[in-house]
Structures are given as structure tokens and as C-alpha cells.
């Protein structure tokens, strides 16, 4: 197929019927079938809606608490319900609102901001959403059945372990939250790969909008930040279910290990929540001032720096645990240092506002509210970073005030600014300015009335998480004010959400740019996204090329049609965004819904120990996932497709060029982080134990370990041979044979590994040493199962003729995971032998 090379914009008339074809391919399902939609525009909307629903639910819990604390010695709510309320409030807000809402906004805005028809894994987004939504609702419902967790949202053992929290309450948290984290990781994979691979041609990294930068960094932070807590929840659940004493001091465990793992996640999590919001601010402020962001490079640098520093702060949540002076000093310094990137951003925004002429619309008011609250929250944050001062205010209402200032100020206000700013992007018309200003005013006033007094009640000695207090301590008036403020704040939320309900009507076709913004999401949009994908030459293309909206809408840029006859988008290179190939995207499907619900069912039924139902849920999820994967790599066609400007692209890529290869690498990073956390736990427990392994326990036998390592390596070698065979187009039978042998090797390796454990004197339930090395073993076992599944799936595709030297993404991904698992398995074996060096 040859087409005349014609520069952009291509003013030649577009062929008739082209637009109709594009429309029909991207037609969303009608009526209630819309639930089977998978493209990110729809999933993004569902996602934002669900997150806002959880905001309301979590807010109601908060109002109940405020009612109880309104007066001293109140009888309204008893301690048992109250303890569930604050645990659920924290957990719902952090895990079901804050993290999901930032991902949701990303999924909603990113495709448009990147001028992509969609992000690379629509069904993965849909799956992540449904698992989160169904699982989240069931998790929330526990409060109605008196089985809601009551250990506080950071669930410190030993309070949350089997001895002090028998019953199901803690299990709901550990399993419920654990898998919602998995859904967050799925979202992060979509976002990271989407940003790296589906940018429009010409949008090099330094031309990405700040928000996209923020989401890229946040995606990375989720990938490294969530694994420690996933591991922690798994370990605590193992302790609860099988009495493996990771956190029990009398048996060599340490409750502080949990705190390290939790805050290793928990502190980055704060920035995972804040950075996207800061990104939104960096988008709204320039538009409202009608001037490009001052200090773009500095702001991006600040975001990247925050991402890194945020992993070095976690200990400031533990200053009161009796740390050595040197440790507190280091983390105190690091915690202060993170104020610098925040300062950079704040001053960049102020400078931008100074240079421009500011339009005082509702989004601007929310942004101003954000400044007022966030700056104060930042300042109290610096106070908390001062370790000696933290010894006083740690775990008091001062901290409660601080964290709400940074989270509500730093995240909720920008999100609502964003809602008012981007509502026209969704529905083609703005929300009510009048309701918006009322909402903003009430939220700002109510917020400060609710939370400023908490600084004072904290300084007056009020610890957090108390269900009642005496009237002799002088806390009454401050608490009463807080309660009144909380209800005013709620009224503000109510008005904003009412405005959304009344005035937000998602429209397929949108062609507005009400704030005269400069970024791509304000191009004319339809269900297929932009009509044609623009070539990008600057950071604010709509300002620099005023005719761009029209050109794009007339189909004068890349890919104004569907060249393959499928849903498709351009995949570009990760750094300089050169077009590389066309990615065929999947259409609407119920499979992600089924898989999501199945996953939720698996975990929740497991929690209530209904094993048959749980297994059924797991099977439904697995079958759905494999069914959707089966069609995920359509047969590549030999021809090249013309997308405009004489550029011709294939409809397939393999190896490191493929988007799925990137997703696999990201997944391996997650996997590796979990493993690294586990290894950290191993060495941590070593440092606090007298003698390692503690008497009378053994190190697993060296010779068997070597044998095991050899078997692991052999399986890797076999898979490498399979790759050569595939390249040489050997017979299917030969390749299958090699893969089957590799699987058998893995099984043999694991069996050997088991053998070294069972023959050594070490049991998981007796001492933390046994618990942690058995956890390492279990992790390898899990990978063994994974390899067996992936290997069998590869064989199945091979036999079905869906896999060859060109069409080999499944094979490549399996190969990546294979070598990774083997490396991990060998490292694990080595770790277990390290004590020999010291004995």
C-alpha cells in the first residue's frame, strides 16, 4: 500500500465513509451493556464515580465519629463501633478513595492528554476497576455486620494478630486491602506503559505535560511502594492463619518489622496521592493564568526528586519507637529535605500566577483553597520531621490535623478543582459556577473549622483514636468546633457532588475548550478520542498552533481513520516518541467484569473461610483472564499501514518493542520488590535475633541447596533452548517437549527445595526464623505454579498455532518471567546460606 507522502496538516479531502467506519468501530455498547465497556474513557468515568462514592461513604463514617466526639463522655457510639469506624474511615479513604481516585483521573485524562485513542491495556483497566469496585463495596459492607476491622488503618501487630484480634475483622482488612492493592498495581502498569508507549508522535519526554510526568513517577512509586505492604499483609495473614510468628516477640519476631514494611509503603503512598494532585495544579494554574508554567524543568525535577526522597522518609512515622539518635537524625533530615521539592512547586505556581492574569473561576478558587491548606499542612509537616518535637505530637490530634491538611488540602482540593476544570471535557459543558463557588467556600471554611482546632486539641494532649474523653482536660470546645466544621465541610461536598449529579452528562462528542487551555485533552473528542493524532512540537500545542483543533478535527493529522478495521492506536518509542507500530485494541467485553468479580470473590470468600466458593471465584477469574488473553495477540498481517505523512507502520511488534514486553518488565519490578521486601524481612529479623539461625534450628542443607539451584538453572537453560528452537522454526513437538522439560525441572527444583526444608530442623510456626524462610519457600512455590501455568499456556498457544517466531509475545513474556523466577529462586537459596559465612 503506497500513499503519497504529504506533510501535516494534510489538507487533502478525506475519503467518504472513513469517519463512519471510525465511529462504528469505537461505538460504545448501548444501555446497561455499557458496563462491558473497556475503553479508558468509560472505565475512567466509572472509576472516578466509584472513588467519589467511597469518599462519601468514608465521609459518613467520619461524621459519625465527629458526632461521638462532639461532647465529652458521649454515649452515642460505643467503643467497639467507634474503633471500627476510625479503622474503616482511614482504610476506605486511603485505599478505596485516595489511591483509586488518582489512578482513575489518570485513566480518564491520560488518553486524551496523550492524543491516544486509548491506553494499551483497556481490559486490564476494566479488570482493575471491577475488582476494586466489587471488592471495595463488600469490604465496606463489613461495617454493617459488625465484622469491620478495628485495628486502626495501619494495623499494628500484635494488636491485629490472632491473639488480640481473634475473629474475622482483621482478616477482612488483610485480604480485602491486599487485593485492592493488586488492583492498584494493575492500574499503575496501564498508566506507566501508556505514558511511555502511547504518546503522540513528537511528544518527547521534555514536552510531556507536568501531569503526565507526575503520573509516570507515581506509577513508578506504586510499582515499588505497594510491594512492601502486600508482603506485610501476606505475612500477617500467615501469622493469623498458621501462627507463623513474624511479629511475635516471644518467638523471635518483631512487631516493628511490620511498621517498617508498612511505612515503607505508607510514606511513598502519601506522595502517590499528592503528586498527581500537584500535577493537576500544574495544569490548571497555567491555564487560569493563561501563561506557560514557570520553571517547567524545575517542577519536573521536583516531582522526580519527591518520588525518590519519598522512599527515604518512612522512619519518621516511627520516631517514638526508640530509634538510635543517628537514625532519627538521618530521617529527620530527609523528611525536611522533601520540603524543598514541594517549595519549588509552590513557588513555580506562584510565579506563574504572577506572570499571568488570573481568571477567578471555580477551579481557581479551589486552587487557592489548596494553597492555603496545603502550605499550612506542609509547615506542620516540617514540625513533625523535627524528631524531638515529634515525640510530643506523634499520635495526637496534631498529627490528625496535619495529615488531613496535607491530604484534603493537597489532594482533595486539587481533585475538586480538577472536577470543575475538566467537567466540560467530559460533558461538553461546565458545571454550575454558583454551586461550585458555594461548594468551595463551604469546603474551605468547614475544613479549617474542623481541622485547625485539632492542632490545639492535640497540643492539649489529646491522643488520636480515642472514642471518648474526659471533660476535665479542656478539649471540649475544640472538639465541638471540629464537629461543627466537619458538617460544614460535608455540606460543601454535598453541594459539589449534587452539582455533578445534576449537571454532568457524559457526552460522546465533545468540542469545547472553555478555559482556553493549551494541552491536547481539549482537542475535539468523540468515542474514538481525537479524530486524528497530532504531531507535537511544543508543550502547549493548542496555544502554539491555534489552528490545531480544527486540523485535528478535520482529520488532517495522523491516523484519521481505522486502517486495520479494528480499534487501534499508535505505539511510539518511549523516549522520543517516534511511531513504531499500530496496536490493535480489544473491544467491549464482559470478561474483565467476570474476572474482576471472580478475583474479589476469591479473596473475600477466602476471608470468611468458604473455600469452595472461593475456589469457584478463583476459577472464574482465571478462566476469564485466559480467555481474554487467548485473543490478545491477533495474527500479524504482513502489510504496512499508512498513518499519514508517508509513515507506514506494521500492526505488530515483538520483543522489547512490544508494549506487552514493557508491561511484563513492570510486573517483574513489582514482583522483585515484593521479593526484596521479603529478603529485607529476613535480614531484619537476623539483626534482632541472638544467633542466626537461632538455636536449635538448622540452615537447610548446602548440598541439596546446590542441587536445587542447578535444577532451577537447568530449567532456565531449557527455556533458552526453546527460544533458539522457536527462532529456527523447529517442530512444535520439539519446542513443546523442551518447555515441558523446563516445567518438570521447576517442579523438581521446588521438590528439592521442600526436601531441604523438611529434612532440616526448622518449622514455620515455632520461630520467626522458620517463618521467614518458609515464607521464602512459599514465594518460590507460588512462582513455580505461575511458571507451570504460563508454560502450559504457551504450549497451548503453540499447539493451537497461535505462536510462531513472529507472533511470540506470549513466549517472550513467559521467557522473561521464567528467567526472572529462576534468578529469584537462586538468590533466595543463596540468602538462606548466607549465615554459613558468619558461623
Amino acid at each position, binding site marked *: 500500500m503506497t500513499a503519497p507522502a504529504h506533510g501535516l496538516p494534510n489538507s487533502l479531502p478525506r475519503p467518504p465513509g472513513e469517519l463512519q467506519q471510525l465511529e462504528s468501530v469505537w461505538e460504545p455498547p448501548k444501555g446497561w451493556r455499557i458496563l462491558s465497556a473497556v475503553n479508558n474513557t468509560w472505565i475512567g468515568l466509572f472509576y472516578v464515580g466509584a472513588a467519589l462514592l467511597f469518599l462519601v461513604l468514608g465521609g459518613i463514617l467520619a461524621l459519625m465519629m465527629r458526632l461521638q466526639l462532639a*461532647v*465529652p*463522655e458521649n*454515649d452515642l457510639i460505643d467503643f467497639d463501633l467507634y474503633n471500627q469506624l476510625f479503622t474503616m474511615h482511614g482504610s476506605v479513604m486511603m485505599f478505596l478513595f485516595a489511591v483509586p481516585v488518582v489512578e482513575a483521573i489518570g485513566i480518564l485524562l491520560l488518553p486524551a492528554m496523550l492524543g491516544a485513542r486509548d491506553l494499551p491495556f483497556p481490559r486490564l483497566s476494566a479488570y482493575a476497576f471491577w475488582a476494586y469496585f466489587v471488592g471495595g463495596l463488600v469490604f465496606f459492607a463489613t461495617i454493617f455486620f459488625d465484622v469491620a476491622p478495628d485495628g486502626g488503618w495501619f494495623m499494628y501487630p500484635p494488636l491485629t494478630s490472632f491473639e488480640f484480634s481473634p475473629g474475622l475483622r482483621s482478616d477482612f482488612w488483610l485480604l480485602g486491602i491486599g487485593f485492592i492493592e493488586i488492583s492498584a498495581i494493575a492500574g499503575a502498569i496501564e498508566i506507566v506503559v501508556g505514558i511511555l508507549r502511547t504518546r503522540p508522535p513528537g511528544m518527547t519526554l521534555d514536552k510531556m505535560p507536568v501531569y503526565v510526568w507526575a503520573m509516570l513517577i507515581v506509577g513508578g512509586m506504586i510499582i515499588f511502594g505497594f510491594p512492601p505492604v502486600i508482603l506485610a499483609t501476606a505475612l500477617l495473614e500467615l501469622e493469623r492463619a498458621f501462627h507463623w510468628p513474624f511479629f511475635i516477640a516471644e518467638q523471635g519476631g518483631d512487631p516493628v518489622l511490620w511498621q517498617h514494611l508498612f511505612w515503607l509503603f505508607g510514606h511513598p503512598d502519601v506522595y502517590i496521592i499528592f503528586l498527581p494532585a500537584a500535577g493537576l495544579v500544574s495544569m490548571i494554574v497555567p491555564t487560569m493564568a493563561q501563561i506557560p508554567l514557570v520553571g517547567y524543568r524545575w517542577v519536573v525535577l521536583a516531582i522526580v526528586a519527591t518520588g525518590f526522597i519519598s522512599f527515604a522518609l518512612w522512619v519518621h512515622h516511627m520516631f517514638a519507637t526508640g530509634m538510635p539518635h543517628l537514625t532519627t537524625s538521618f530521617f529527620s533530615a530527609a523528611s525536611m529535605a522533601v520540603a524543598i521539592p514541594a517549595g519549588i512547586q509552590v513557588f513555580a505556581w506562584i510565579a506563574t500566577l504572577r506572570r499571568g492574569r488570573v481568571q477567578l473561576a471555580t477551579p481557581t478558587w479551589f486552587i487557592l483553597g489548596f494553597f492555603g491548606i496545603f502550605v499550612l499542612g506542609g509547615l506542620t509537616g516540617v514540625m513533625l520531621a523535627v524528631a524531638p518535637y515529634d515525640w510530643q505530637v506523634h499520635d495526637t490530634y496534631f498529627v490528625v490535623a496535619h495529615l488531613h491538611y496535607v491530604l484534603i488540602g493537597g489532594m482533595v482540593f486539587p481533585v475538586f478543582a480538577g472536577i470543575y476544570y475538566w467537567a466540560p471535557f467530559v460533558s461538553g459543558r461546565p458545571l454550575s459556577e454558583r454551586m461550585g463557588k458555594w461548594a468551595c467556600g463551604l469546603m474551605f471554611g468547614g475544613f479549617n473549622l474542623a481541622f485547625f482546632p485539632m492542632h490545639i486539641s492535640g497540643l492539649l494532649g489529646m491522643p488520636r483514636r480515642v472514642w*471518648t474523653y*474526659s*471533660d476535665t482536660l479542656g478539649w471540649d470546645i475544640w472538639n465541638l468546633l471540629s464537629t461543627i466544621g466537619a458538617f460544614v465541610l460535608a455540606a460543601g461536598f454535598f453541594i459539589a457532588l449534587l452539582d455533578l449529579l445534576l449537571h454532568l452528562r457524559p457526552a460522546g462528542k465533545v468540542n469545547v475548550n472553555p478555559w482556553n487551555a493549551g494541552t491536547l485533552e481539549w482537542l475535539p473528542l468523540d468515542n474514538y478520542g481525537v479524530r486524528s493524532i497530532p504531531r507535537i512540537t511544543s508543550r502547549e500545542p493548542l496555544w502554539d498552533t491555534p489552528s490545531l483543533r480544527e486540523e485535528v478535527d478535520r482529520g488532517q493529522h495522523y491516523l484519521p481513520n481505522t486502517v486495520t478495521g479494528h480499534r487501534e492506536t499508535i505505539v511510539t518509542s518511549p523516549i522520543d516518541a517516534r511511531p513504531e507500530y499500530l496496536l490493535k485494541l480489544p473491544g467491549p467485553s464482559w470478561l474483565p467484569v467476570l474476572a474482576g468479580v471472580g478475583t474479589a470473590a476469591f479473596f473475600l470468600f477466602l476471608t470468611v473461610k468458604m473455600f469452595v466458593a472461593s475456589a469457584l471465584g478463583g476459577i472464574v477469574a482465571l478462566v476469564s483472564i485466559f480467555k481474554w488473553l487467548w485473543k490478545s495477540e491477533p495474527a500479524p498481517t504482513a502489510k504496512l499501514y499508512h498513518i499519514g505523512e508517508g509513515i507506514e507502520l506494521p500492526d505488530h511488534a515483538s520483543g522489547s518493542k512490544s508494549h506487552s514486553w514493557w508491561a511484563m518488565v513492570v510486573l517483574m519490578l513489582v514482583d522483585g520488590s515484593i521479593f526484596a521486601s521479603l529478603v529485607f524481612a529476613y535480614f531484619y529479623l537476623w539483626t534482632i535475633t541472638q544467633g542466626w539461625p537461632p538455636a536449635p534450628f538448622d540452615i537447610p542443607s548446602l548440598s541439596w541447596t546446590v542441587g536445587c539451584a542447578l535444577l532451577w538453572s537447568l530449567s532456565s537453560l531449557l527455556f533458552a533452548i526453546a527460544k533458539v528452537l522457536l527462532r529456527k522454526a523447529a517442530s512444535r513437538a520439539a519446542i513443546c517437549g523442551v518447555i515441558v522439560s523446563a516445567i518438570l525441572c521447576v517442579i523438581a527444583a521446588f521438590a528439592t527445595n521442600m526436601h531441604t526444608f523438611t529434612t532440616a530442623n526448622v518449622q514455620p510456626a515455632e520461630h520467626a526464623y522458620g517463618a521467614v524462610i518458609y515464607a521464602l519457600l512459599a514465594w518460590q512455590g507460588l512462582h513455580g505454579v505461575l511458571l507451570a501455568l504460563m508454560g502450559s499456556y504457551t504450549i497451548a498457544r503453540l499447539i493451537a498455532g497461535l505462536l510462531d517466531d513472529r507472533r511470540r509475545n506470549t513466549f517472550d513474556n513467559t521467557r522473561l518471567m521464567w528467567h526472572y523466577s529462576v534468578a529469584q529462586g537462586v538468590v533466595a537459596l543463596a540468602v538462606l546460606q548466607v549465615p554459613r559465612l558468619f558461623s
Partner: protein
Amino acid sequence: MSVTARIAIGWLYLVLCGCMAPEGYEPHVPEGDPRQGREVLAELECGVCHVIPGVPGARGRVGPALADYKRNVYIAGRYPNDPDILTRFVRDAPSMSPDTAMPAIEMSEAQARDIAAYLYSL
């Protein structure tokens, strides 16, 4: 009063205060200050054993609930509920009822009167 007049008053009641129950017996404690009494009750933490409306944290169930106290006919199941007796009883229950679980609590005569006054104000 004629029936018509009564019905007219009924309307007035309805409009003014919904449903108003006729007042009952109002015992009076000379020199007792109900507001002080509430403070004393809180100070002495009588709520460990009694539910006392208006006193923060008073949710004990060792002794009887003291809501509507003025309507109670008897004290401790043996004495008529009148101001003098109640004032004596709150100070030194064992001397009046030797088998009671309520200890003699140290307080002044005036405090006892205040407490009685508060209980009668419930």
C-alpha cells in the same frame, strides 16, 4: 368551663406546644442549687454506679437509674421520697439502710442538698 372553651384551649395547646402533659409533684430542696448539684455529682463520680441524665459519663448500672427521680415514690424501697430524707440518704446511705451497697460518701450537708436539688430537677 364550657366544652367550646375547652376545645379552643385544646387548639391553643396543640399550636403552642404539641402535647403537654400536666405537671406533677415538684419537690423543693431549701437552699439546694441544682446546677451546683450536677457539678458535685460529676466531681464525686456518682455516675460509676448510676445513670444520671446530664452528668457526663454517668452510665453505671450498679445502682438504680436516676432519671425522673422526683417521680419516684420511695427511696431505697423503704423511705418516702422527700427532700430531707433524700438529702440524708445521699450522704450516708448505710446509716439509714444498713444492708445497702451504697457507701457513705464524704460530702458536706450543702453538697448533699445540691445533689438532691439536681436529682429533683430531672
